């Protein structure tokens, strides 16, 4: 195919950086001239140019529209990223978050003027507590990893309140990287727990590691292999028997929401990713929201602020001195990711108790359908049904010269977003597929057909096809080694 004179390809139009367009004088915003006043800046005005480019509004709109067309998105196609829960993000959520009286609220208005907002936080908290079967929830964490840190701080505060300075947190090898990173940020030592050959925590190894210096076990359930921890009740008993708390990473709550309550599993502490299970958009990497549900022994140590309901309506408790509990501190400015709360509550109300139960059923059904239909062509890592995501390894690619990465890049050319690759670390060349409940059978069948065709192609010795892939995307494989060796992290003239 001959190159075009412009380098463009019909709908794929090349777009330079904003810094390579525009000028000093142009602006896409018309502002009135400032009134003439004596300035009060104390002689600390900026001197010289900042270097920002100025563009007119139509140029700006075109720039970002063209950029948007270089992105894969859940609106545009199937996004089976394991452990990421890329489900449909309802537009009603967006509309509700922008309502006058919600989106425009200032966090420091007198509490008498934000009773509806506090009611909304309280209502969402109620839904989360009922769904998880837990008595309390800390609403302020900004994302999943922030929730992990908050949960661990709560645990440490609870131990320290009894004068029990425990130093170790047990984390399974299959855990997401945020788990050990959060434990380290909370001042804990991380002690890995091995998996057994069924993809679950090795119970005997866990029991051997439990002791008087273990503060908590951090377990993802369903775990990152997409499997329910079958020994969970015994795990909880062993953890509690050692005087430790049971932290559950709730990233995979979508598999069990409405069907299993973590509170019935002996869990003390679990963060939820509202941007996964409860449909708020990932936005290209945030914002998220990571409320943490807490068991009764941990509840008094939850961070500030929190909402209470009394005779005079709703109130935010913002200070230790106003609290009748023992809050460990504050983890975020203001009152949490309110805009995400609105979206999540709109979704939860839309689905209801019955719909959320159906969410878990359809998510698990869709994943098992992928697992069943692909097991003959790919190599599933473990036997038995999965929960909300299906895990394969790279044994089916042995001696083909095709790696998991190559396989995933070929899926891009097929029009699908790749699955999660090389995670969890406990299987070789992992491919973790999470379809979610918002995909139709037709979409799954089309994806299955592509994966099967690619597997056949790999086994037929067409390694070069995979090494070239992707060829139809706006960019082909990028040189990450060069990017890391000589980092260019900003534009310069």
């Amino acid at each position, binding site marked *: 195919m001959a190159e075009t004179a412009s380098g463009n390809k019909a709908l794929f139009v090349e777009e330079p950086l904003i810094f390579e367009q525009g000028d000093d004088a142009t602006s896409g915003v018309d502002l009135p001239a400032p009134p003439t006043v004596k300035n009060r800046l104390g002689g600390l005005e900026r001197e010289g140019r900042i270097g920002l480019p100025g563009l007119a509004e139509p140029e700006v709109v075109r720039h970002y529209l063209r950029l948007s067309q270089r992105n894969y998105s859940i609106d545009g196609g199937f996004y089976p990223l394991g452990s990421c829960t890329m489900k449909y993000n309802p537009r009603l959520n967006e509309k509700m978050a922008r309502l006058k009286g919600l989106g425009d609220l200032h966090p420091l208005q007198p509490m008498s003027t934000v009773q509806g907002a506090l009611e909304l936080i309280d209502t969402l908290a109620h839904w989360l507590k009922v769904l998880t079967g837990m008595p309390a929830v800390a609403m302020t964490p900004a994302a999943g990893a922030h929730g992990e840190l908050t949960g661990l701080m709560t645990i440490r505060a609870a131990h320290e309140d009894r004068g029990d300075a425990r130093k170790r947190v047990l984390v399974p090898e299959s855990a997401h990287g945020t788990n050990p990173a959060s434990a380290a940020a909370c001042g804990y030592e991380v002690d890995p727990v091995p998996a057994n050959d069924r993809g679950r925590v090795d119970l005997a190894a866990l029991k051997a590691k439990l002791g008087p210096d273990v503060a908590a076990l951090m377990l993802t359930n369903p775990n990152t292999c997409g499997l329910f921890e079958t020994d969970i009740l015994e795990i909880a008993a062993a953890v509690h028997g050692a005087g430790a708390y049971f932290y559950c990473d709730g990233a995979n709550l979508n598999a069990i929401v409405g069907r*299993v309550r973590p509170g019935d599993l002996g869990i003390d502490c679990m963060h939820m990713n509202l941007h996964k299970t409860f449909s708020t958009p990932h936005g290209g990497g945030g914002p998220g929201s990571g409320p943490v549900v807490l068991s009764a022994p941990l509840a008094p140590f939850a961070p500030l602020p929190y909402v209470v309901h009394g005779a005079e309506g709703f109130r935010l408790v913002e200070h230790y001195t106003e609290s009748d509990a023992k809050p460990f501190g504050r983890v975020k400015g203001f009152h949490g990711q309110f805009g995400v709360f609105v979206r999540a509550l709109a979704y939860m109300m839309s689905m209801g108790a019955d719909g959320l139960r159906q969410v878990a059923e359809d998510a698990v059904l869709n994943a098992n359908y992928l697992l069943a239909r692909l097991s003959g062509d790919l190599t599933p890592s473990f036997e038995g049904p999965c929960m909300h995501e299906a895990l394969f390894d790279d044994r089916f690619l042995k001696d083909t010269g095709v790696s998991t990465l190559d396989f995933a890049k070929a899926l891009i050319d097929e029009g699908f977003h790749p699955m999660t690759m090389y995670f969890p670390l406990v299987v070789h060349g992992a491919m973790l597929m999470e379809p979610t409940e918002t995909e139709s059978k037709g979409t799954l069948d089309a994806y299955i057909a592509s994966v099967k065709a690619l597997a056949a192609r790999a086994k037929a010795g067409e390694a070069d096809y995979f090494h070239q892939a992707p060829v139809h995307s706006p*960019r082909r494989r*990028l040189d990450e080694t060069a990017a890391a060796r000589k980092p260019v992290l900003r534009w310069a003239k």
Partner: protein
Amino acid sequence: MRYLPLTDDDRRQMLAAIGVATVDELFRDVPAAARLPAPVDLPRHAGECAVERTLGAMARKNLSPSEVPCFLGAGIYRHHVPAAVDHLIQRGEFLTAYTPYQPEVSQGTLQYLFEFQTQVAMITGMEVANASMYDGATVCAEAVMMAARVSRRNRVVVSGGLHPHYLDVVRTYARFLGLDCVDLPPDWAGDEDLAPSIDGATACVAVQNPDFYGRVHDYSALAQRCQEAGALLVVTVTEPVSLGLLKPPGEMGADIVAAEGQGLGGAPSFGGPTVGLMAARNKFVRQLPGRLVGETVDVDGRRGYVLTLSTREQHIRREKATSNICTNSGLCALAFTIHLTLLGEHGFRQLAQLNHATAVSLADRLAKVPGIEVLNETYFNEFTLRLPKPGAGVVEALAERGILGGVPVSRFHPEREEVRNLMLVAASELTTEDDAAAFADALEEVL
């Protein structure tokens, strides 16, 4: 249910393909005692109309700042966000994309983040910026932890001019990480001297500009003092619009800038989500938390962008990562960068000038109200008033008259007698002369 595409017929076919009779069989790994037999005790599903009605009712119980004169700031600032911003961030390709781990199909997100990093570095006067954090308060805590890693020291000195929420977050993070946090008392009078607190064990000094009470500072001498002691200077900014007019932290010798970006592109949204901005000297880049986008080329030699220096991050370094942060504030960063691109050099400076001039007019007007004293000699778009009576009661009385008058400092320091009568007041391009007049009149009534 409108978000679930599977039909009962689909479900039957799929169960048959799997080889089980019911979905319940797929949940067989769950202990029987923990399987709920029926839906939990919450309302059943609802249509759009019903949800809008319920949430709309909650919204109407609030006093909307869009509908009344509003002078609230203290870390969240109301500005006019151009219509194009909200339109563009709602494009599905931006809104519903994941973190750009597959660069071949994520160039849109990656390029705007590269542009965002450049803009943040430019307006703060720093060499390098990351691709966003949660909010100003958590960036401030991350900056302090980063300074401890860089300096290999564990004492952090925090100015009494720092936003109290930021201080609380720094204090909380520091406590669990084993850092010694030396925080000075609230500096409402503006006479704090940080120099005596700095010594050979100091990892960093954290200050804010303009400070919490609105004063504008030149931290150049403090930067010099820090450098001599081998400590880092962390400068926090809560109002990004101020950077259009004020000497940026980088020109004062800041080592790390920790800022809240909500003032550009972001709705107040009751305080979240917002976007944390983090910038630093280039030599500290490997100690930065969070994501970084870098420029490279693809196999055909075409320019493109990737996430880079990822070995700092939790998904590779696990417990040795520079931070546990994963999801950050991508979409808020997009709103920020679009707003700043729309403004451009000229518009950004003009917006800042307009904010300042409006605040000066307002301060001059309020200073004429009997009993009121404007404490600040310097400020950008927010200043502190001393009232003849407690601020908490005054803002309640103003709210009853339909005016969101300001933030009583006692909301942050309920135990401190000396700040009881202080109130923070912010103005912006949204503040009209009528608003200012109504505010002044109402204050005369309630005082």
